[in-house]
């Protein structure tokens, strides 16, 4: 995996220089008010950073949010691209020079729809819930390079409700905005975060770096990493191929079914 093609989510600004030391120069930043689930920053804090800077705009907008987003349109021009969730972002910026990247979580699952978007914008982030065969097929058929999540935690659920606050209020217990939930039948663990904009559930850490050798890497624009609390040393080890068995491999070998009785 070429380090110059790694795009990594930044949780603390002082991590940037440390990542640069290990050869990573492309960074993804969540933005105050317009992002959810990740440590976020003010645009002013980011604009003068000397690196490739992408913004993660992953909230679902209501009409007021649309107006607020339009107000920062000019400030976005100094960034190298925007990874967006709500289609409003595309509709507002489609005639600008800003590189737009479609990241409608869980929807980038077939090459036809991905190519629809690639014909209209800069790139696409593939969904995580597809097999290695599907990823491979998509990478053979895309008409522009796309972004692949290779390590981190997946967003599993995005609710507009304040699920932790509601629970804590109901049982009159101390409120917290982050808990670890365990689904005991299947032993799935979900990191759960709440903000004023809703609640996100994240999967456990996954790592598919070992599968990259099966893919057409020429059609991968970036290898995307969401460290979610892991240290730079741990990330570096993962990038270098260590601790492969410590993390699950997501849906690489897990074909989902949708009709009962299907194999």
């Amino acid at each position, binding site marked *: 995996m070429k380090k110059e093609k790694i795009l990594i989510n930044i949780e603390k600004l002082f991590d940037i220089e440390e990542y640069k030391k290990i050869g990573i120069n492309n960074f993804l930043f969540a933005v105050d008010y317009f992002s959810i689930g990740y440590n976020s920053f003010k645009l002013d804090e980011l604009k003068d950073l000397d690196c490739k800077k992408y913004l993660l705009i992953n909230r679902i907008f209501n009409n007021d949010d649309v107006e607020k987003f339009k107000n920062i349109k000019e400030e976005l021009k100094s960034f190298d691209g925007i990874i967006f969730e709500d*289609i409003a972002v595309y509709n507002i910026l489609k005639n600008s020079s800003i590189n737009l990247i479609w990241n409608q979580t869980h929807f980038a699952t077939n090459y036809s729809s991905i190519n629809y978007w690639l014909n209209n914008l800069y790139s696409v982030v593939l969904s995580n819930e597809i097999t290695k065969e599907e990823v491979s097929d998509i990478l053979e058929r895309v008409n522009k390079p796309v972004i692949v999540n290779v390590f981190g935690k997946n967003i599993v659920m995005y609710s507009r409700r304040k699920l932790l*606050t*509601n629970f804590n209020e109901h049982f009159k217990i101390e409120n917290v905005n982050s808990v670890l939930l365990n689904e005991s039948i299947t032993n799935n663990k979900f990191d759960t975060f709440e903000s004023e904009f*809703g609640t996100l559930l994240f999967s456990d850490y996954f790592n598919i770096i070992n599968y990259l050798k099966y893919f057409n890497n020429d059609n991968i624009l970036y290898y995307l990493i969401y460290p979610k609390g892991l240290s730079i040393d741990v990330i570096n080890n993962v990038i270098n191929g260590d601790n492969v068995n410590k993390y699950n491999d997501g849906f690489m070998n897990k074909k*989902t*079914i949708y009709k009962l009785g299907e194999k």
Partner: protein
Amino acid sequence: MIELLSPAGDMEKLEFACLYGADAIYIGGRDYSLRANAKNFSNEEIKIAVEYVHNLGKKLYVTVNIVLHNQELDGLKEYLLYLDSIDVDGIIVSDYTIMNLHKELNLKLELHISTQASITNYETALFYKDLGAKRVVLARECSREDIKKIKEITNLDLECFIHGAMCTSISGRCVLSNYCTNRDSNRGGCAQICRWEFERIDKDGNKTTEIPFSMTPKDLNMVSNIEDMINIGVNSFKIEGRMRSIYYIATVILTYRRIIDKIVNNSLTDAYTNYCLNILNRCANRESTPQFYNKLPGKDEQYFLGRQEVSNQDFLGLVLDYKDGVATIEQRNYFKVGDIVQFFGPDTETFNYKIEEIIDENNESIDVARHPRMIVKIKINNKLNKYDMMRIKVFDF
């Protein structure tokens, strides 16, 4: 246009939805439809369904709303052309390939964007309008003000859910089912994991509390807001539940049919609204609220501990015939002489009745109708119609 839109999981449910007052029906085919485990309709059955509803002057929409994987692309074009050729009125979609094909194939059926697309603002709605959408099904997270502004700016046909189960997540933004059961929620396999209980644990895996965590929402119910929704420009009033029973469909559709008609006739009263709320809550066996319409839902819009969903036994019988003061009834749940029941139907004013006598198929008087689907006769002076229903009398009207 005000349209009452009913789900139907099979032909019988479709017929009841039409009979009980729906203006339009949405169904799923055997492929490409969420609710993959409902009975759903074969291609030939869709054709029959179209002819059936068109003969009644109603409309039929087909959900083609899964998020496609590569394997589902084969045969998709042919399926869409088929739906167009048999005069389906519209398709409800969420995948861009299908939206693109709608334009490329120059289909005459309407393009409706599914609630899976999470439309909560006017810019997103405008994007889909540019793609050829005639209608958008708004996310259930939209507030009244969101809906109003989307209508004002886009002038699209707006379809809003008014009744039924809610996702905890923004629809389309959840793959809990994929992780926990390997069933793909965006291809119709949702196992409703958000209705399960979870443990709260620390990083070492130890439980931090004995109280199970749950996030189950109560159902949606917009009885009290229908008039306001009409006034702000909602066009289609959608009921959730393609896997629900004929009793549920009949009860919910008839309730909203009468509410809409009373609003149009300016005869809706608070007492009638309250009666409807009682009937609907009882029918679903779940509490229901307006959820996001006027506020962000809080703890009172969710369920927490130990909720058991026992099946509803209210549906006692289906009227098969009425002649000379005698109703022929197909039993659906246990009832007996002396019970006070309630009859209702699309052309029957709801009335209470005390069962005086039950006659079985051998023309013998019996005390109890205990066998599922047994045919009995009951003397009733009030005129009934075929496919009226008999339920336990719980609420006065």
